[in-house]
């Protein structure tokens, strides 16, 4: 009777179960006899062979584990608990796992190198970017009441044009404190020189120290910002006129000791008594201070009634409720009560802005900021770029790990067959990740140290090596490295664990790891990110180059600017100094002006009498110069004439083209009169001598605003010298000597205008450098990822390639075969990346009033570069695959 039951096969199955359970072959053989004996008995009772076998086996199989355990207990010399019953925490085998992992990493040196390099390069950038980000976003947080302090800025809209100032008229602070509920305190501070000029020289006997952090402050300032006074009383130090509070560092510079209380110092020709010394403050504040002069030192001009102009920096401390919105709601009432009258007369309006203290540093720069701000754009672009970089790094890691896992299918297959559990296998893979993460961490720190000087230069943060290698930073690196490694190895690990050993061992080359959709998405993301970054770099480069080299309207080369200290002793001798300079053979021209051309100007609303005799009030920038200004800096007179050099104290002004054009005076500008009141309040009419071409003051990417140039020999803060190009070096030495003869004890502070102008674009240049750095790294990492993928793909198709070669495929044909898919993906990435980068660079360019015309160039170049690098990488690797001898690929089975 044939029931189809094959006893021998059934027995084999039964044996296998027991083998898997851990029983030894000898024991199994013995039990097998038992099973067969019992089976015979059952068959005698009338059961079929199959039923008899099943029932007989059931007895031994149903508790096979107990069977195995009992056998183990009976025979083992080592302990009573069989291995399958021992509770082993997976990590207890970690040292062993690490050893195995180490061998694997060594075995695949290049892949490991790529892994570690990719991870550490991007992590080191991430670390530095993080330090930068942390520094930039933590400004002013150290002040005790930082959360409740606001700076008041004001936005004026006059003649339809809006300007925002970082400071407000003098009466605002006292009146707001008095009348608005919710404001606990208000203080004012202003530059000790003029409004924004906070540079001053301190004289102690013959010793002269300059500082550019000197302000005049309300008596409450020290308490308001919670300054830590080492000596003196915070509430009283700034009460009396001619009193001064200095930082510890400045006190030491001046007197060689911080015990400076009661000592005398001379500033701007005035004697001051030191009434307090405060501990040096953190330097990450938008308002660093070296010395504070008492507010009462200066006459209270416009203190209570000048509601327009006469600006001072004003800080408000809200009460405990800190309800800024409630305070803001009261402001329109305040405006109506005190300010409306003034602004109605000018025909404008004012609108206050409450800037939270901790946000000021990254806010846009308003007019008259005491110090340059950080760049919010840079900080956030950096953040986005870092996130993108991390994304690319993770993708890269995944790609490389997938490539790695492909090579290991066989090994994992064997491990699985031999009984490795999923848990142990994943631990093994985790150990590799851990090891890679560790090396990457070490190299990250090394790279960060190497990059540190560059970073310091770029960021303006003076970070020391010890601060860099602080414990939090080191843990940051290792935790992140392990985190990125682990996150990125989840997918490859899952992949490798889901192999069926049989597939892994028998039909390796047909086995597919992962869906191509996912892998392709990863590549597209990488390409897109690289493309966007390269485009950004190119556009930022173009724009920066454009603004740096844009014609500013005057001859900026070989123009030397000497900064004149605000000091009576200097001012008195200035004219004779200029006289001496003009006789030097290498000096082509000498002039003086109140502002540097690299700086900002005053703005006001003067009155004019137009050619028809109507009185017009219009907003203008104002520059005060001497009569050699136009000739020395090389302006063109486009209408009328330059100042008349023969007339002393000529009552004439010049306009720029924009001023003439916007008021409709072009062609008849010389008939316009500028109306002014002299110090005795007598009306004076200045004639408009002529119109000069438009020229930029400050950054070149802003539109030129209407400007009037007024003759005023008393406002000579800067002396301009046109120098003969060949003699620059010799001339500066000679100039210094001349300076020292005239002004002994004063520092010869000079600058070449073109260099100073270039420094205006530091921010753009730093941004460019940052972007370049990040895009280079991103491309580098993308290339690493591509290498990983190409080697993966060529490994997968090894046999296919070999067979194709055997049947006559050319080398080129194989390269095309391998790269075709990548190129398709690249085209897709271009379709996604180009619109994104177009949108982003447009947005960035929007910050500039004058900007380059965006054309296809940068996009095309970016695309080509991206293609070039990835194709190059691919070629190198596909070549290797294509050149391999077919027999090597085919003989493996």
């Amino acid at each position, binding site marked *: 009777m044939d029931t189809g039951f094959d006893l021998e096969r059934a027995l084999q199955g039964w044996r296998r179960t027991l083998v898997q359970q851990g029983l030894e072959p000898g024991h199994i053989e013995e039990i097998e*006899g038992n099973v067969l004996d019992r089976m015979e008995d059952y068959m005698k009772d009338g059961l079929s062979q199959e039923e008899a076998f099943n029932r007989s086996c059931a007895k031994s199989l149903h508790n096979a584990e107990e069977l195995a355990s009992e*056998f183990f207990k009976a025979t083992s010399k080592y302990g009573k608990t069989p291995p399958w019953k021992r509770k082993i925490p997976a990590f207890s085998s970690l040292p062993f796992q690490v050893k195995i992992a180490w061998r694997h990493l060594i075995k695949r040196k290049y892949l490991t190198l790529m892994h570690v390099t990719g991870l550490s390069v991007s992590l080191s950038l991430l670390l530095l970017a993080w330090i930068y980000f942390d520094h930039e976003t933590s400004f002013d947080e150290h002040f005790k009441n930082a959360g409740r302090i606001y700076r008041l800025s004001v936005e004026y809209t006059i003649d339809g044009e809006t300007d925002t100032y970082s400071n407000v008229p003098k009466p605002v602070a006292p009146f707001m404190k008095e009348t608005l509920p919710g404001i606990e305190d208000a203080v004012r501070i202003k530059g000790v020189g003029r409004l924004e000029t906070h540079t001053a020289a301190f004289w102690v006997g013959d010793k002269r120290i300059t500082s550019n952090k000197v302000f005049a402050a309300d008596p409450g300032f020290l308490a308001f910002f919670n300054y830590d006074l080492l000596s003196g009383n915070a509430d009283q130090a700034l009460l009396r006129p001619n009193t001064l509070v200095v930082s510890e560092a400045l006190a030491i510079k001046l007197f060689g000791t911080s015990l400076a209380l009661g000592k005398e110092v001379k500033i701007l020709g005035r004697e001051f008594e030191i009434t307090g010394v405060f501990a040096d403050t953190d330097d990450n504040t938008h308002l660093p201070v070296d010395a504070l002069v008492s507010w009462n030192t200066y006459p209270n001009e416009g203190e209570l009634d000048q509601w327009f102009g006469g600006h001072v920096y004003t800080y408000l401390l809200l009460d405990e409720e800190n309800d800024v919105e409630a305070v803001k709601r009261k402001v329109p009432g305040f405006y109506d009560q005190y300010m409306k009258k003034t602004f109605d007369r000018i025909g404008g309006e004012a609108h206050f802005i409450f800037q939270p203290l901790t946000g000021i540093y990254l806010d846009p720069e308003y007019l008259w900021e005491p110090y340059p701000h950080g760049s919010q754009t840079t900080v956030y672009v950096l953040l986005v770029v870092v996130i993108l970089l991390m994304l690319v790094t993770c993708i890269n890691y995944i790609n490389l790990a997938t490539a790695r896992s492909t090579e290991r299918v066989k090994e994992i297959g064997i491990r699985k067959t031999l009984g490795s559990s999923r848990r142990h296998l994943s631990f093994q893979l985790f150990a590799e990740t851990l090891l890679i993460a560790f090396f990457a961490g070490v190299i990250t720190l090394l790279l960060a140290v190497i990059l540190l000087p560059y970073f310091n230069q770029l960021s303006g943060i003076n970070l020391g090596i010890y601060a860099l290698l602080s414990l939090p930073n080191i843990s940051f690196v290792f935790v992140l490295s392990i985190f990125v490694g682990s996150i990125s190895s989840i997918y490859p690990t899952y992949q490798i664990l889901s192999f069926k050993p049989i597939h892994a061992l028998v039909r390796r080359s047909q086995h597919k790891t992962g869906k191509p959709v996912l892998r392709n998405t990863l590549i597209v993301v990488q390409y897109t990110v690289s493309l966007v970054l390269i485009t950004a770099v190119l556009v930022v480069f173009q724009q920066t180059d454009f603004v740096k080299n844009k014609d500013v309207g005057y001859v900026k080369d070989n123009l030397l600017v000497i900064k004149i200290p605000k000091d009576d002793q200097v001012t008195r001798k200035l004219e004779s100094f200029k006289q001496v300079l003009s006789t030097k053979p290498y000096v082509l021209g000498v002039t003086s002006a109140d502002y540097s051309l690299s700086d900002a100007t005053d703005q006001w609303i003067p009155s004019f009498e137009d050619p028809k005799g109507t009185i017009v009030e219009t907003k203008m920038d104002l520059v005060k110069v001497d009569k050699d200004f136009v000739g020395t800096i090389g302006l063109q007179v486009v209408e009328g004439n330059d100042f008349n050099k023969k007339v002393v104290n000529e009552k004439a002004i010049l306009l720029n083209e924009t001023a003439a054009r916007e008021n409709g005076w072009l062609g008849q500008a010389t008939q316009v009169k500028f109306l002014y009141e002299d110090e005795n309040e007598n009306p004076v009419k200045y004639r408009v001598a002529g119109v000069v071409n438009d020229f930029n003051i400050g950054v070149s990417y802003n539109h030129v605003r209407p400007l009037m140039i007024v003759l005023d020999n008393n406002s000579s803060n800067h002396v301009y010298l046109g120098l003969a190009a060949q003699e620059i070096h010799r001339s500066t030495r000679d100039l210094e000597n001349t300076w020292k003869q005239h002004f002994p004890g004063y520092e010869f502070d000079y600058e070449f205008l073109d260099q100073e102008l270039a420094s205006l674009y530091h921010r753009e240049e730093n941004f460019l450098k940052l972007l370049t750095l990040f895009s280079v790294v991103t491309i580098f990492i993308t290339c690493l990822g591509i290498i990983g993928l190409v080697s993966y793909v060529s490994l997968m198709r090894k046999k296919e390639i070999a067979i194709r070669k055997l049947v006559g495929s050319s080398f080129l044909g194989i390269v095309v075969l391998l790269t075709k898919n990548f190129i398709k993906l690249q085209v897709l990435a271009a379709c996604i990346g180009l619109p994104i980068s177009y949108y982003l660079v447009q947005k960035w360019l929007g910050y500039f009033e004058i900007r380059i015309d965006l054309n296809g160039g940068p996009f095309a170049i970016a695309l080509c570069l991206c293609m070039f690098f990835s194709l190059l990488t691919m070629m190198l690797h596909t070549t290797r695959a294509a050149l391999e001898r077919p027999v090597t690929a085919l003989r493996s089975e």
Partner: protein
Amino acid sequence: MATKALVAASSKPLVLSILKHGRSYGYQIIKNVEQLSGGELAWTDAMLYPVLHRMERDGLIQSEWVKLDNGRKRKYYQLTEAGGLAGQAEKRQWQKVNEALNVLWGSNPHLELG
């Protein structure tokens, strides 16, 4: 059904006593024990074989593979000299236990109880 403890305790004397009558093999031993106890002691493979192996390791029994006529192999166990002695010792102990229990379960055990 006998308790696990009793099964464990009785396995050694039972095996020794069975093998005193001549060599035998696993299945035969299990069947004999089952019949002798009227089905009360149903030994499993997991119980018997480890006991046999332990006893063999202790030198109480020895085994040999025997090729049967039908081509199969079977492992037979037989007592060693030490096994014989151990069997007698076991026998004395169990008889003592048996006597004690019999007295206790009899009508007049003469017990002194506190």
